[in-house]
């Protein structure tokens, strides 16, 4: 072998090695690589775990529910639209009976057609521990989402009847949580959910192609997807769990991924300077203080509640967070159809705050003394310590002395479920747990419904008010969507007018994208649509 031949052989070998290390761009395939905040690949069998991120990337990509969120608009709040069900309505004669018309021609990735029987099979998968397909892991995620379903029946292959235990106008929101796995694939695999995890089959626009537990999942386009307008524009999506925020930034900057979830706020300016796109939008996330209303809580005085809301300088908090928040004026963003027209203007007005406190007998010599249970970190908690210290300072300036009690995040969740009366809450006057507020129940009802105190739910503060309960019942029994929105807006107006919470911020839901990622529309939602995304090399 001459020197020239040897060099060429080496160059050839080197090219092969380098080629192997490059993404599949060389094959002409377009690939979108996403760094998730999750520590593991979300459950791939259907009802994904890992919170909203799991549903965002593994739930609503591979699978679908009967009803889905419209994720096509950045400007408008998301609404529910048909998915595997073409339409649904409550029986005019019996408001506990719903009829869902199933879409004809929607197929699972294994080629079999989705029918009403399959919807029932999937309800049984999470609701009936005696059914052969019952899967505790999926049940853990889905069961609690459909608390009022009593029974279901297939009237024909394309007509599904669902009965509820109470008149439940929120049912469509509940149904949107439940995704459908393929019974045929599960049977083919001998009824083994672990086998199904590596070889799943849903009806969604993406199909799972590669699954390396804890390391990566690769989704490919489903060319036979029923909704032609949502056939993916990218050939492949690679999902990588990167729980460490700085590692996500490094992976993006080194070109290992094209998209990261939740870049840390202090990395945002440098990412922007380096040409990366920072995408944000308001969404139904609510960072607030939930007040205790048990006897002796200073928050039982409406003047104190209003004063706290007026004492908080949210514009300065916005600066503190580098603009990655929206100033809250209520439980839901002002763009929400449920915001309504409250009379109490949630603003920064320390003088008015002091006046209100004085009216209730408080003053410089007699400050209000409250405490707040907070966490040092946690999913959706944004930056809890500096934010709460800022609140402490703001409230202190008008005469509300705040003691912060910092506990571990999971401990805080346990406290939250235990309720303010429980010893676990240590006599706390306020708890800072950020809330998902995508539907009327999660946004409003669950926090103040008098029946949802421990152990029945998460009315942490033991708020008890018959007239509020009546409004919740009215909303749950208003089946027309527009009318229901109006009733929910009325409820929200009351939340604001009585300052029932300390309204602080809505997260801006930041994500950082490489310049080559185009066409992404960030919906005002916890879930996002990857199908229109284009990679321009």
């Amino acid at each position: 072998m001459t020197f020239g031949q040897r060099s060429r052989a080496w160059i050839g070998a080197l090219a092969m090695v380098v080629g192997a290390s490059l993404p599949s761009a060389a094959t002409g395939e377009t690939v979108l690589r996403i760094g998730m905040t999750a520590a593991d690949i979300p459950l791939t069998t259907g009802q994904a775990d890992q919170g909203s991120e799991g549903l965002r990337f593994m739930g609503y990509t591979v699978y679908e529910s009967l009803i889905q969120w419209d994720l096509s608009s950045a400007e408008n709040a998301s609404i529910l639209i048909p998915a595997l069900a073409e339409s649904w309505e409550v029986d005019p004669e019996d408001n506990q009976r719903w009829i869902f018309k199933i879409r004809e021609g929607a197929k699972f990735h294994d080629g079999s057609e989705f029918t009403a029987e399959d919807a029932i099979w999937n309800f049984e998968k999470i609701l009936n521990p005696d059914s052969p397909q019952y899967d505790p892991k999926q049940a853990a995620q889905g069961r609690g989402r459909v608390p009022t379903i009593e029974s279901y029946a297939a009237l024909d292959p394309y007509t599904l009847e669902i009965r509820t235990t109470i008149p439940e106008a929120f049912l469509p929101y509940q149904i949107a949580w439940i995704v459908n796995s393929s019974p045929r694939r599960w049977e083919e695999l001998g009824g083994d959910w672990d086998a199904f995890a590596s070889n799943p089959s849903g009806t969604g626009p993406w199909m799972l192609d590669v699954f390396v537990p804890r390391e990566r999942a690769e989704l490919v386009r489903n060319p036979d997807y029923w909704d032609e307008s949502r056939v993916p524009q990218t050939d492949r999506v690679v999902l990588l769990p990167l729980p460490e925020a700085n590692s996500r930034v490094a992976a993006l900057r080194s070109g290992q991924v094209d998209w990261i979830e939740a870049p840390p706020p202090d990395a945002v300016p440098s990412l922007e300077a380096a040409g990366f796109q920072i995408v944000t939008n308001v969404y139904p996330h609510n960072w607030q203080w939930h007040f205790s209303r048990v006897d002796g809580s200073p928050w039982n005085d409406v003047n104190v509640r209003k004063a706290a809301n007026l004492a908080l300088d949210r514009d300065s908090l916005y600066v503190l967070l580098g603009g990655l928040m929206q100033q809250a004026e209520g439980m839901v963003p002002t763009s929400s159809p449920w915001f309504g027209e409250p009379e109490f203007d949630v603003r920064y007005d320390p003088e008015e705050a002091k006046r209100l406190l004085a009216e209730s007998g408080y003053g410089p010599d007699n400050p209000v003394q409250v405490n707040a249970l907070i966490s040092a970190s946690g999913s959706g908690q944004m930056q809890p310590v500096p934010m709460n210290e800022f609140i402490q300072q703001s409230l202190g300036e008008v005469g509300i002395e705040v003691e912060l009690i910092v506990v571990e995040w999971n401990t805080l969740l346990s406290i939250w479920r235990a309720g303010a009366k429980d010893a676990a809450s240590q006599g706390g006057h306020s708890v800072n747990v950020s809330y998902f507020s995508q539907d009327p129940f999660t946004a409003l009802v669950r926090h103040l419904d008098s029946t949802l105190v421990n152990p029945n739910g998460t009315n942490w503060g033991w708020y008890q008010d018959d007239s509020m309960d009546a409004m919740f019942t009215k909303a749950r029994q208003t089946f027309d969507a527009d009318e229901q929105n109006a009733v929910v807006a009325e409820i929200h107006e009351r939340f604001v007018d009585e300052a029932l919470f300390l309204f602080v911020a809505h997260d801006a839901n930041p994500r950082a994208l490489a310049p080559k990622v185009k066409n992404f529309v960030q919906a005002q939602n916890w879930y996002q649509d990857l199908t229109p995304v284009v990679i321009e090399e």
Partner: protein
Amino acid sequence: MLRYVLRRVAYVVPIALGVSIVCFALVHLVPGEIVDAIVPADAPPEVVEQMTKDYGFDQPLPVQYGLWLWRAVQGDLGESLVSGRPVAAEISKAFGNTFVLALAAALLGFSLGLLMGGIAGYLQGSLWDRLVTGLAVTGVSLPHYWLGIVLVIIFSAQLNWLPAVGAGPAGSDQWQLDWAHLRHMILPAVTLAAIPLGIIARTVRAVVAEILNQEYVETLRAKGLGEGRILVHVIKNAAPTVLAVMGLQFGYLLGGSILVETVFSWPGTGFLMNTAILQRDLPLLQGTILVLALFFVSLNFAVDILQTLLDPRIRRG
């Protein structure tokens, strides 16, 4: 010797049992329900109850411990609460990844540490000695996760020369000895090598310096032995101490570093443990702690035996 080994084995059994009790009990001390790891935060109580029953966490703790230990001694560490995969398989896969990384870091750290420490000890008081001592102190004192982040900033984010995360272009399942995979290993291996390099360089320097100052070395010199032969004596006398330190350091490397593996998202035992903690995946956490603790117990045992073989004076009693 056999009696000594048997006695050491007898010590290991109660330690192992103690370790199993501690790691089973510790994870049960965390607040909240065990199934909190898998149910959404706002799951209604009947769901939490159903899951507690489905996973057998409604049984009394001693019963749970007994069942867990009985299965553990048969090699079955249960299933991960979150992923449903067998814990033993998860650990063995992660251990493979940690082993590859530890080996690379050990090769780098040990060889450089031995070389630098040896030369520094031999040339006591010289500029080289001071340089090595300075480097060793730096290596030991630097928080290695910080070093890892700095290396990532320079070589991944700024220069784009090396990948910042992961074990390979397609995960660790198809790991092979090629450049595409080796380049993923460079930064974490260098980061992990810093501490053993510092410790070994410092130990070797101290031991070599001490031996060289001993009278028998003077005697050897007086008898006219060449420096090469003297070095053989030095190495032989330094070996037990250095070997013990190297053994422990290799053990630490094999144990996986939670911090470094997390910074580099390297799918080893440290990363696995971090994931288990973040997800509150108790069976996985218990299994990982148990395996790592037992691994350290066995490693100490092996080093003890090895030291005794090399230096019979250590054989106590």
